[in-house]
């Protein structure tokens, strides 16, 4: 029991790191994803190509490798930047979680692009036309009418991706971020009681996910207003 409680507390203490990783990755990922989705929907010449390339590259690269690339690559770039500009940028001052967030955000952005794009495209064209007819700009139309309606469709997928991110964030341990999975490994190494540790960490993950699931379904219910579905 003591073992259980001690480990539970130890792992809980880093839960904020896990949540921080997941939330920031989703927020940044969604921002990039929204941009990419709109570029794809409107098939903007040339940058549409660039976006496709970006999506293909990131989609094809396992997060683990993105993580390595961010961790080893960005410092290299900063380093040569620092040398060529003789600015005093110290790479070592950057906390590793920064690189983890970059990698996770890039990864999520690809999937979010798809989720957002499919949701937006499911909204009947008449809705956009109605916006235009009252004189809204495309931006206003998206913000006030299209995105709120698309969110209803997107939320189940966004919540999929978010809960995925909560667990995917454990890969940040590869670049020495101490989040929940890393902490449980640290805890397990003393006793080798992986079974118990896994139970503890699973319960914690589930708890966090339940909380977010609750939020998502509340949002979904709210947005369902005015929606007529099968």
């Amino acid at each position, binding site marked *: 029991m003591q073992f259980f409680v001690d480990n539970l507390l130890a792992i809980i203490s880093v839960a904020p790191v896990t949540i921080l990783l997941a939330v920031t990755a989703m927020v940044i990922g969604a921002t990039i994803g929204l941009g990419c989705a709109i570029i794809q929907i409107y098939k903007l010449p040339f940058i549409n190509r660039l976006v496709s390339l970006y999506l293909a590259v990131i989609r094809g690269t396992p997060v683990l490798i993105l993580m390595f690339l961010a961790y080893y690559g960005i410092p290299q770039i900063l380093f040569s930047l620092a040398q060529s500009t003789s600015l005093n940028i110290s790479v070592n001052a950057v906390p590793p979680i920064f690189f983890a967030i970059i990698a996770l955000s890039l990864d999520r952005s690809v999937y979010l692009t798809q989720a957002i794009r499919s949701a937006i495209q499911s909204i009947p064209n008449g*809705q956009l*036309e109605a916006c*235009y*007819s*009252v*004189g809204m700009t495309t931006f206003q139309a998206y913000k*006030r009418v299209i995105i709120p309606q698309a969110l209803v469709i997107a939320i189940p997928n966004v919540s999929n991706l978010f809960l995925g991110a909560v667990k995917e964030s454990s890969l940040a341990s590869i670049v020495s971020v101490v989040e929940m999975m890393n902490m449980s490994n640290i805890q397990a190494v003393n006793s080798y009681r992986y079974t118990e540790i896994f139970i503890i960490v699973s319960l914690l993950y589930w708890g966090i996910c339940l909380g977010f699931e609750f939020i998502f379904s509340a949002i979904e219910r709210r947005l369902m*207003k*005015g*929606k007529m579905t099968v």
Partner: protein
Amino acid sequence: MSNPMLQLRDIHKAFGTQHVLKGINLTVEKGEVVVILGPSGSGKTTLLRTVNFLEKADRGSITANQFTVECLDAKKQDVLMLRRKTAMVFQNYNLFANKTILENVMEGLIIVKKIKKKIAEKKGLEVLDKVGLADKANAYPNQLSGGQQQRAGIARAILLNPDVILFDEPTSALDPELVGEVLTTIKKIAQTGVTMVVVTHEVSFAKEVANRIVFMADGNIVEQGPPEKLLVNPEKERTKQFLSRITSEKGSTDFSN
């Protein structure tokens, strides 16, 4: 041709190989109510949609209140400008599904005209009252009957107070009582100098409301003129044919007087 409010020049539009608009020229004066009549599929809706740039014409230019846009090289800013001079009532209503009826009519005021929410709400309720929807202000579009949605669509366009309002069959879902009210409303608005283009199938309504009737068939304007002239004494064969049905029908059904 003193001061036309809306001027369409040589508008062409094709969907794939189907040529839907074959060079439409139309001039509408300020405060005029022009009704477009024509058989189903003749391109009436498409014409209104190109004016609002919901469909981009393949050729031609559009002038609204001195502001001219060449359809082919219209910039974003131009299109927006044009749209803000016009408002549209859709054949299938197209209310914002995620907004209540009141929010639907207020939306344009708040977002486009930057009117304060309080004031927009007051105006919104007023116009809803005018079309008999005061008690539905907080309902969502999917909770309304067809006629109620149509009236909400009309209210939304009217409230924007644009230079030109484009109506696409604004009375199709309305019972005669309401048709009369819409008629009165349109006439009142016309008196304030707003220009209107109305597509309708109801000839009696057209006759009442129009300063001029334009008869379209097969992507062309066949002829136009004041209602007394065009409905009674059309020049073209196609118009006569279209109208013959109506008069014959009317004749046979008129046992009310």
